[in-house]
């Protein structure tokens, strides 16, 4: 029920409570309400739940976590 999917913003129209955008989810493009992510622009990834973006994906955080996980394994191999 709380399923939310990341997609990339392709275009934005409208302002404030009417701010919406076309968001591409791995090839499927949908209209998404962007009222809750004023900081997100074209080219940003947003996490979308029932047609409403609830966060902008923090790419740096994502990369840092993945890097940490990759290193975690390397250290084990070395040990």
């Amino acid at each position: 029920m709380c399923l939310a999917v990341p997609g990339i913003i392709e275009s934005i129209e409208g302002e404030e409570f009417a701010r919406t955008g076309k968001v591409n989810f791995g090839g499927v493009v949908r209209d998404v309400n962007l009222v809750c992510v004023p900081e997100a622009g074209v080219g940003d990834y947003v996490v979308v739940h029932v047609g409403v973006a609830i966060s902008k994906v923090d790419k740096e955080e994502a990369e840092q976590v993945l890097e940490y996980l990759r290193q975690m394994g390397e250290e084990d191999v070395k040990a």
Partner: protein
Amino acid sequence: MKFVDEYRDPALAERLVTAIRQLVTHQWTIMEVCGGQTHSIMKYGIDQLLPSEVVLLHGPGCPVCVTPVEILDKAFEIANRPEVTFCSFGDMLRVPGSHGDLLSAKAAGADVRIVYSPLDAVKFAQAHPDRQVVFLAVGFETTAPANALAVDQAARLQLKNFTVLVSHVLVPPAIEAILAAPGNQVQGFLAAGHVCTVMGSTEYEPIARKYCVPIVVTGFEPVDILQGVYMVVKQLEEGRSEVENQYSRSVRSEGNRPAQALIEKVFRVIPRKWRGIGEIPASGLGLREEYSAFDAELRFNVAGNVVEESQDCISGLILQGRKKPPDCPAFGTLCTPEQPLGATMVSSEGACAAYYRYARGR
């Protein structure tokens, strides 16, 4: 898909499983709160990858499951009115109330429609002023901004033919109810990543302190869940009980402020009854008085009857992590996804339904 596929990488998952094995020295019981996480755990067999010391219990985090029968009966009654177009998320259609489910109402001629978003129901109402459009607004904090937006849009558009039947629930009071229950076995939590995307993680800090439990905000892909388990086990082994954030690519500690402002504008905190658990104080959302014109319960004057739940069903104990689905004598016999007796079998994210689908043959 970016930000999905990386978190399904078997090599990373294997590293995390190895790290958990190396870390664990005691027996630990951890609860994942969200039904989406339960579904992932069973689908990817994560429970079977973990060392035997780590037991996962499945929490109450499925709004479809915990929606009380009374609300389903009200939905059924309203949906059967000739002037009504009843809109709902697809997963609510097969949840049985006392007289049947919405799908059977549809089959018998009621105008019941599945919508992807509550905003689609508002659009439909705008385009069809001759129809009374009702949206079944269920969900946790994750869904509350979208449902609040729908009501807010309807108010801005001055729609006279749009109402919502609200059954919104909140996660922290349910976690507290579980921890405060006598015989609680849960020692650590994976908190629900999308609930915390909206609400942030700070509201869990008093709970972690009061009950001395580690709470790790966790995502939904296999690597997310394994990392969340790793972080909880690490805290347990080190004797810490803090709130940590595994799902940092989406969750900020303060949450999503514009989304919270929308929720605050449209809803207020009220007591809610949870199917299988009972009433929990301050555990849900209801419409604020300013928005009572959009309240389907008032518009259609549906009286509240109290409904008894099945005696054969132990879903209340399963929702609280005190039993697992195969412990129930009705599991897979009297109770199946086609003919569910109770909360945890009714939706694909319910623990019983996930076990039925993925783990019956184990």
